[in-house]
């Protein structure tokens, strides 16, 4: 559940960053985005807030309304090695293929970004982490080799939120394998 949109930052610099986990808890690795925010939440200590989305993608538009800085974590199925981490800083480029087969229903994260762009509802800074999942059939629990990748993404997001000045314009890249 999202904290109120646009909650002021204790540091006084406008709304805090929002990290959104996407996925479904009943389909194994599809839950990885939700698990990532579960692990992240206790470690944020006021530096940001989290939200969870298990519905379809357009939900994101409401969740990130009024948030200048947003990070989204989702499972992807691109054919890469399970556990592969993709990071994408959304600028004016179309969202690349791995994110077109992401797990959100009906409307993928790539579609949501394109839709948000045509409606002028994109956050000023939007970073999407995708982790290649292994199993998407009904079932509870992440695959063994996915969990460490989730931990790594949590660390990266913490750095990201800490104000690490990444080059936000770089294209997506496969970063590491589980």
């Amino acid at each position, binding site marked *: 559940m999202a904290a109120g949109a646009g909650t002021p930052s204790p540091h006084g610099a406008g709304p805090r960053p929002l990290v959104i986990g996407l996925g479904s808890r009943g*389909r194994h690795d599809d839950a990885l985005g939700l698990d990532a925010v579960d692990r992240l939440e206790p470690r944020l200590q006021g530096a940001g807030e989290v939200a969870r989305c298990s519905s*379809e993608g357009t939900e994101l538009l409401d969740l990130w309304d009024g948030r200048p800085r947003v990070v989204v974590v989702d499972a992807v199925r691109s054919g890469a090695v399970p556990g592969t981490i993709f990071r994408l800083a959304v600028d004016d480029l179309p969202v690349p293929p791995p994110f077109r087969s992401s797990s959100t229903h009906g409307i993928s994260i790539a579609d949501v970004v394109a839709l948000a762009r045509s409606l002028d509802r994109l956050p000023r800074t939007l970073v999407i982490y995708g982790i290649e999942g292994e199993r998407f059939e009904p079932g509870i629990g992440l695959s063994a080799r996915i969990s460490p990748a989730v931990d790594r993404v949590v660390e990266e997001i913490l750095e990201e939120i800490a104000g690490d000045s990444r080059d936000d314009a770089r294209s997506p890249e496969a970063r590491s394998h589980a």
Partner: protein
Amino acid sequence: MTERTIAVNYLARVEGEGALRVRIHDRTVEEVELKIFEPPRFFEAFLRGRSYREAPDITARICGICPVAYQMSSCNAMEQALGISVTGAVRELRRLLYCGEWIESHALHIYLLHAPDFLGYPDAIALAKDHPEAVKQGLALKKVGNALMTLLGGREIHPVNVRIGGFYRCPSREELEAIRPDLVHALELAETTARFVAGLTFPKIEEDYEFVSLRHPDEYPLADGEIVSNRGLRIPPSKYDETFEEIHAPYSNALQSVRKGGGSYLTGPMARYALNRDRLSARARKIAEEVGLEPIVTNPYRSIIVRAVETVFACEEALRIIDAYRPPAAPFVPPPDRLGPATGYGVSEAPRGILYHRYRLDAQGLIQDAKIVAPTSQNQKRIEDDLRSLVTRSLDLDEAALTNMCERAIRNYDPCISCATHFLDLDLVRD
């Protein structure tokens, strides 16, 4: 001799993914196989041995679009097994929560998934470039549905405030009144939506359906009721298994629901409207008349207008419930002190049709056996029947046109394959 197969490996704009295979032999459609729904078998197994109390939250995970439906059908079934009945303000709050899900789901389907078909756009993104106002309207309407679900469900997706017997906590009058202005606006948007979709151009197709829906003595059906059809069926939910069955199609491993001794049937907005038009709220009935919606819709493409009329109903019903609301003395009806082995049956109207749950409990209230039949599973055979007649009439179309036509036909039914698998793989074989 020519054989032709149409294969759609990714069905766009239906929730999740599925696959369609059509085989045409010497200008005869020999096979239509639609794999869009995987019954929630995993959850049926997962529920075994768990407490009756856990069913609403566990089954809500089956679908990201209609979690309320899963909660309501499971509550209905468990409450029947426990011998408790939920009435008054608590029951009204359930209807209110369900209105939120209908508004959210119908707005999503009308504007983002279905409308692009009628306006000649490949998807909502292309639609948004030329008609941003229409898409914004859809999103605004959807947002009000979500807000209602958040208010009553604890959070919009997979609501957690529902429990067997009612709610963990009921809202105050003030909390409900706070959302009233948004619903007034949503009602206007829903009426605008009905006028907009009624102005679209519809292919001229009529189908002969057996419509199946719930029916209540004086309400448009949402959270409960008897199961009725336009062919004389009228049964309580406990007779579902005696009336419907899931059969193996000869060419597929998928199970398909049929009337026992009969054929396919249709559940969802067209069925509800055909069987309950006399129970619509005043403005919903008025808008249906204004836009010229026939009393019984048998053109599946016109289901988009029925969804809009139902959205008007859901907004109006939500306002009625809020205005009449007095917080109940207790947020839930407690379970009995002593449980006995029992079986409970529950049905409710998910946005896309009736959702059936059956649970057998032991004397400790542990689930021994669970059966869940989702609306898309029930509609699957009916969708295949439509596709068969559609392809038979359109054999001279080229591959791309035929594929597009099949996809449109499937979207008419708003199938929820996210309840199933995520990834839809058309396979068109002509030989």
